[in-house]
């Protein structure tokens, strides 16, 4: 017999209770004089016998009741070999899947949930018999098949369980279920069990469950059990995705941004948000978030005056709670350095007569921009890799070779800014795929300034110059061309119900199209105060532009944006300082981001060419499990919480017969017997009290007055 709750065995000490009561009663004998013992002697032996029998019987019943209750509380089950006698299937194939996601690192006071899950996995291992097969997987964003196929080598499985390390990945169960289903489908005849040790976060179940738990799952007859380490709901706050309000950072410049703070606790969350840039803390901000809600917390700070390299590594963090890993979010910003711009302009006359005159003059101001001007014909031969942006200022057309070169330039992360002009061949331009618009005919506008509307006011091109409070000013335009944006294009500005500034991403680069000529032929925009900041911002953006996304979830793959890996050997520096070479022409820099932090991609020739960060999935910070209703439709799936419930489930699944219901029934029957017997004895005793010996008159007691022990109180009886 196996006890599922052996820790209750000390409760058997309660059996001493009736014994002690019995002894206590025996000891307290009062002595009293009595007129004669002749009648007492006559009945003493009989009553003593009867009392002894009654006492002994009641004592026995009560002893047995307590024994049965305590034994039932210990939850005994019959051993497996007895189940075998009845022909139960004893061969077991077990899949142990341990959730190693970030949320499993949540501390619940007595360790973290992953440790508890591993302990419970060991409990399942203990329940296996020699010959039973087991496979071990750990699951986070991806599945790590530690013991990929069922094996009878239990020592190997135990080592695999112990080797599971906590990760910072989000929870995704889909792949684990698929692998288990495939593995168990090939398992020999017997019971097939899957144990998923997890905190059971809702995010893990967000997949097509109907497709997963289909007929194939049903025919495999897998008994799936979701084992939660606990049902606690410890307070936890999490930082969500960070939004940077600036596209780049300059030394001593202001950086703005916001971050979402999620409070998954039942109390108001109050903390201090610390912002760091480089190795310095550059700001603090108090945070107060209502229970079970989130809040977008804005921040700004002045960047240090000494910024090295091309990327500034920044971060925001909370002071830490039960899950410290999700209390920090890193972000990287490109450091704005001098940009190198190529202006392609038509015309061969004096400087002032060429179409890119105003563009060049605007970019020259400030000396932070190195500029080169070429004719359209030179575009076929001019190396573009060294330029951060190419301005096509009113050129008539782009030949095919230049088109291809510009496309490659864009894919590698470059910026192309296109001004149409009177000489521009609309048909020729419309054949270029990477342009964000298709040009139509020229239209004259009414005299006067035309209002300009910003469709995307927070676009980086407007940062530092215009905003919702400081809108883009009306422009003195006279003509414009009818434009039809392409599917991927974004209209940033409109004028006279026509797109004015359009942008689109192409590869890792960016294309801008302005519906204005670079000279004064379509209007006086080049002479207005807004022309210069727009040109300078585009130039700066191109100079400080990263290649691709800079923020990923842990476990996500990181694609090699543009032609990044084509250029030469690259080395990836991980947050822990280790380095990893990135193969040339590799489609991905990383298949899966292993941990939180800042990753730097270094080139031997150019230094750090790219940086990105890994952030935690905010859902991982949510300590509460998925609602039971979510798992109801999954066939053969059950859920238990805690080691005791797992023990019980194992006892039931191992073909063991639980004995405690029987013991409870026995206790109930004994209780009934005890009640009946005690009642009968009391009835008999009460008969002795009720039956009075008739005297000459009715005495007062017989008339219904209460009887007092050892006689009547005359004072009271007289009063009555």
């Amino acid at each position, binding site marked *: 017999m196996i006890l599922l709750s052996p820790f209750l065995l000390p409760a058997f000490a309660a059996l001493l209770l009736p014994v002690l009561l019995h002894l206590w009663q025996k000891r307290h*004998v009062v002595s009293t004089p009595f*007129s004669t*013992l002749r009648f007492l002697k006559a*009945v003493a032996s009989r009553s003593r016998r009867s009392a002894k029998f009654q006492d002994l019987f009641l004592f026995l019943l009560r002893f047995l009741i307590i024994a049965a209750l305590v034994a039932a509380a210990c939850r005994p089950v019959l051993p497996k070999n007895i189940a075998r006698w009845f022909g139960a299937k004893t061969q077991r194939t077990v899949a142990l899947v341990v959730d190693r996601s970030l949320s499993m690192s949540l501390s619940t006071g007595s360790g973290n949930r992953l440790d508890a899950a591993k302990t419970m996995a060991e409990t399942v291992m203990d329940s296996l018999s020699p010959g039973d097969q087991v496979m071990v997987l750990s699951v986070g964003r991806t599945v790590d098949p530690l013991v990929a196929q069922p094996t009878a080598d239990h020592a190997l499985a135990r080592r695999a369980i112990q080797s599971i390390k906590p990760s910072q990945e989000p929870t995704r169960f889909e792949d684990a279920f698929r692998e288990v289903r495939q593995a168990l489908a090939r398992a020999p005849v017997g019971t097939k069990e899957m144990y998923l040790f997890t905190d059971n976060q809702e995010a893990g179940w967000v997949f097509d469950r109907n497709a997963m738990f289909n007929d194939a799952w049903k025919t495999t007859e897998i008994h799936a059990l979701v084992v939660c380490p606990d049902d606690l709901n410890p307070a936890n706050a999490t930082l969500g995705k960070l939004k940077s309000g600036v596209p780049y950072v300059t030394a001593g410049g202001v950086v703005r941004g916001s971050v979402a703070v999620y409070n998954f606790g039942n109390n108001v969350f109050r903390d201090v948000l610390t912002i760091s840039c480089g190795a310095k803390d550059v700001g603090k901000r108090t945070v107060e978030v209502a229970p079970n809600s989130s809040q977008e917390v804005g921040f700004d700070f002045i960047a240090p005056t000494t910024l090295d390299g091309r990327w500034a590594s920044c971060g925001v963090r909370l002071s830490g709670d039960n899950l410290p890993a999700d209390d920090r979010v890193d972000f990287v910003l490109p450091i704005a350095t001098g940009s190198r711009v190529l202006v392609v302009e038509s015309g061969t006359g004096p400087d002032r007569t060429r179409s890119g005159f105003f563009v060049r003059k605007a970019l020259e101001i400030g000396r932070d921009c190195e500029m080169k001007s070429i004719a359209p014909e030179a575009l076929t031969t001019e190396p573009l890799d060294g330029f951060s942006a190419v301005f096509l200022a009113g050129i008539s057309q782009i030949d095919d070779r230049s088109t291809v070169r510009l496309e490659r330039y864009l894919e590698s992360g470059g910026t192309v800014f296109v001004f149409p002009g009177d000489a521009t061949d609309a048909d020729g331009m419309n054949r270029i795929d990477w342009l964000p618009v298709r040009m139509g005919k020229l239209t004259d506008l009414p005299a006067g300034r035309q209002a300009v509307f910003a469709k995307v006011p927070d676009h980086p091109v407007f940062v530092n110059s215009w905003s919702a409070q400081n809108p883009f000013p009306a422009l003195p335009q006279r003509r414009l061309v009818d434009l039809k944006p392409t599917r991927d294009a974004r209209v940033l500005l409109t004028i006279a119900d026509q797109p004015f500034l359009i942008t689109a991403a192409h590869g890792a680069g960016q294309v801008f199209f302005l519906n204005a000529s670079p000279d004064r032929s379509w209007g006086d925009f080049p002479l207005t105060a807004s022309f210069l900041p727009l040109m300078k911002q585009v130039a700066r953006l191109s100079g400080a532009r990263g290649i691709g996304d800079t923020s990923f979830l842990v476990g996500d793959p990181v694609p090699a944006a543009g032609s990044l890996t084509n250029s030469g050997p690259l080395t990836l520096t991980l947050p822990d300082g280790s380095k990893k070479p990135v193969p040339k022409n590799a489609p991905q820099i990383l298949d899966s981001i292993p941990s939180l932090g800042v990753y730097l991609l270094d080139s031997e020739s150019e230094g750090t060419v790219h940086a990105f960060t890994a952030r935690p999935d905010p859902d991982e910070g949510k300590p509460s499990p998925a609602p039971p209703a979510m798992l109801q439709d999954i066939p053969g799936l059950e859920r238990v919480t805690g080691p005791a419930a797992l023990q019980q489930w194992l006892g039931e699944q191992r073909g063991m017969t639980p004995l405690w219901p029987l013991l409870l029934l026995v206790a109930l029957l004994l209780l009934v017997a005890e009640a009946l017997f005690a009642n009968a004895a009391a009835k008999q005793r009460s008969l002795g009290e009720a039956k009075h*010996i008739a005297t*000459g008159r009715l005495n007062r007691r017989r008339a219904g007055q209460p009887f007092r022990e*050892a006689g009547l109180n005359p004072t009271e009886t007289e009063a009555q």
Partner: protein
Amino acid sequence: MDSITELIPAGLMSKLRQMTLRSRYVSEGSMSGSHKSPFKGQSMEFADRRRYIKGDNLRDLDWKVYGRTERYYVRQFAEETSLRVNMLMDASASMGYASEGNITKYQYACRVAAAFGYVTTGQQDAIGTYVFGDKVRESIPARTGKPHFRLVLDRLSVQKPSGPTNTGACLHALAETISRRGLILIASDCFDDPDAVFNAIAHFRKRMHDVILLQILDPAELELPYKRVTAFVDMETGERLELDPVHARLAYKKELQNFIGTIRDHCAKMNVDYRLVSTAEPFDDFILQYLSERRRMSL
């Protein structure tokens, strides 16, 4: 219990003055009184006729009978005499038992004796008292008069219940002592061998006494109300018996009931006026009711 007022409340005393105590049978008194005598004598009540014998007073000749039968008969009249009430008080140790809140059985017996004596003295009859335990301890032959009544009360109050009991032997001895027919009141708990007691009472009945047996018991003896395991100590022998009264109560009552039933049956057979009384019963109610019943019986 030195004073009669302590034994009989003033209110009861005035009620007792209206009561009488009569024997159901003829009595042999030493003085003329209001009770029937076995002898013929001077009274207004015609008793019988008998043949004239020489020496009879001619004034008693019944001339009407002579006119009818021509034979000489003399008329006889019933003699009326005084009543002798002898109260036999059991003063063994068991009579000293009293449960909480009650008086002892001996005290109750004394009160009954005082009431009987008061009524008897009031009707100019004689009272006598005998106190016994294992032997007769006090003998006060029957006499009339209030001083004698006071003497009886004094002697009763001096006696304390103690020692073992031997009711049968004592009653036998007293039956021999009390020769004249009268009223015998036996106040005892009768905790003795029933056969010996019945033989002794039969002795009294044989001598034509009108016997009243008053069995006085404490309510605790009747009900055994104890609730815990108790060590009972016999007041006469000092014997100790440990018992759970809760379990023994019903059987005890049956046993006691049988004992009382035996006494009652024997008394009925011997025409003895038997009463069982509990010391919890109000004394005045009991005595007034009992005397009323006696009066009805003797009418």
